[in-house]
């Protein structure tokens, strides 16, 4: 029996997870969300630059649809926070896959908050090179992005006119699914061009970010769907991340319980096997 349960067809486990997540989504039971200090640091930095003349935040979209559920809600919340505080936002992408997602995030929030393209925000789109693009932007912003995604000149748009180089931004936040925070932004931009960097990552990459948080090269971190839900709580606008916390909790419980069951059965089985082999030995001896 135990052996059978240990070797259960994995499709039953798939079904179990699917049903568990779906059930948690369909029966809402709001859970309290407490923002952590790493998330608050990003939020507070943006709050601290409001009122500054020409305050501008650079948002780098370095992810793709494969991590959209984790990073898109954070992108939306940060843009919302900036717009509500009259902070200008410039978007760019180191990953080509992010271009449409970034556009969608800007479109929905700018419509809701009544912000104007070219004056309050712009989206520059994607360029190749990543590291060399950063070096290029560090020295000459308008040279690196001479036009935005829609072909408007960056030296003429009110939102980017005053940006001479990377250091002109009051805060840079990168939303990263891969190695762009540590491999690109921390390595090539933070110390060399004296920028203040905040990060949002998928949960997969966030454990690797802690050394940079402690060294101060990264001043805050919004990690995964849980971080996104915390950010939504801070900007007081619930979205997909907050709604996702309930199925997320349910799935974690299911997985932890299945680990416990799996281990219990494994140890029971192991003990039984040992006993059998001991009695087997005794039989052969007698």
């Amino acid at each position, binding site marked *: 029996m135990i052996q059978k349960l240990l070797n259960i067809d994995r*499709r039953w486990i*798939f079904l179990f*997870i699917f049903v568990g*997540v*779906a059930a948690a*989504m*369909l029966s*809402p039971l709001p859970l309290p969300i407490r923002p952590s200090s790493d998330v608050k640091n990003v939020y507070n930095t943006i709050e601290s630059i409001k009122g500054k003349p020409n305050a501008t935040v650079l948002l780098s979209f370095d992810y793709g649809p*494969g*991590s*959209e*559920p*984790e990073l898109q809600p954070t992108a939306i919340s940060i843009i919302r926070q900036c717009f509500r505080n009259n902070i200008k936002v410039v978007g760019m992408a180191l990953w*080509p896959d992010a*271009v449409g997602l970034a556009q969608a995030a800007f479109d929905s929030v700018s419509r809701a908050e009544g912000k104007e393209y070219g004056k309050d925000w712009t989206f520059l*789109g*994607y*360029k*190749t090179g990543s*590291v*060399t693009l950063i*070096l290029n932007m560090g020295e000459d912003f308008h040279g690196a992005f*001479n*036009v935005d*995604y829609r*072909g408007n000149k960056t030296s003429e748009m009110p939102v980017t006119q005053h940006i001479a180089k990377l250091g002109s931004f009051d805060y840079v936040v990168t939303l990263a699914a891969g190695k762009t925070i*540590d491999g690109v932004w*921390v*390595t*090539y931009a*933070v*110390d*060399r061009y004296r920028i203040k960097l905040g990060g949002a990552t*998928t*949960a*997969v990459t*966030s*454990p*690797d970010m802690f*050394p940079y948080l*402690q*060294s*101060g*090269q990264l001043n805050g971190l919004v*990690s*995964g*769907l*849980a971080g996104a839900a915390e950010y939504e709580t801070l900007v007081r606008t619930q979205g*997909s991340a907050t*709604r*996702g916390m309930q*199925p*997320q909790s349910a*799935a*974690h419980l299911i*997985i932890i319980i299945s680990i416990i069951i799996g281990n219990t059965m494994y140890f029971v089985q192991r003990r039984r096997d040992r006993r059998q082999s001991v009695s087997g030995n005794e039989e052969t001896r007698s």
Partner: protein
Amino acid sequence: MMHNPGSRTATFVFAGVFLALSIWQLAVENIALTVDGLGILTAAGLTLALFSFLYDDNPLFKIAEHLYVGVAAAYGLALVWFQVILADLVNPIFFSTATIRQLWVLIVPSVLGILLIMRIVPKFSWLSRISFSYVVGFGAGISIPAYIASQLLEQVHPTLAPALGWDGGDKFILIAAMVLIAVAYVVSRRGGGDLGMNGWFGPTLLSVVFLICYFQGVGAASLVLVGVVAVLFYFFFSVEHTGAVGAISRVGIWFLMIAFGASFGFTVMARISLLIGRMQFLLGDWLHLLKS
């Protein structure tokens, strides 16, 4: 592939579920046959086709997968054309009043780029080496000072800097660590055992230290130092991992195991989040079962 019964079941069940539920949504007028409505149906169909792999490999999955690869390739190519080749090369060279000096600055990388593409012509593929050597050499050059400054020095500094402000817990842990290393050294010189490092004793002791440090709020800086040094010892293969070195690298393994456990936990979290994202689409945008 269709000879496999699992594959056949997956194909028909998932296609059937998709058709039935889509027709239901069209019938109750949650989805209209507009450009947007067809978009939702296409996306839902592809999602189910890919999910059908969970039952068994099957033609629906394969078709969706290959279609995606083709679309993704053209998507990326188009972005490179519009955002780099058109914006940075074609427009400035052909549709602007650039000076000769401004032009050659653009012509050099264009020529190097074309040499790169020569890779696909076997006879001239060696020409691409010139462009590769530019990119690789430049990349290596910019990385050296950046790695030394931003990754090595900036990371070593905060590990050692708390030496100025260590609390009582830190001092105790550092002294205890040194004593333990000395004991391990002496014991190993006399041919003694492993100090319980390979059993349950060591990890239990470490857990107790961790819990005391956590609840008392002390000792974090020294634990970081001990952890970093121990992990570096573990990765240092030039000396044999026995005696004191063995004991230190053992501690390094425990630290690494905590980090791997944390990474595993975070990975589970991330994967579940992605499933939630897709389910929000299926149950919300497609089936309209979720209250927004």
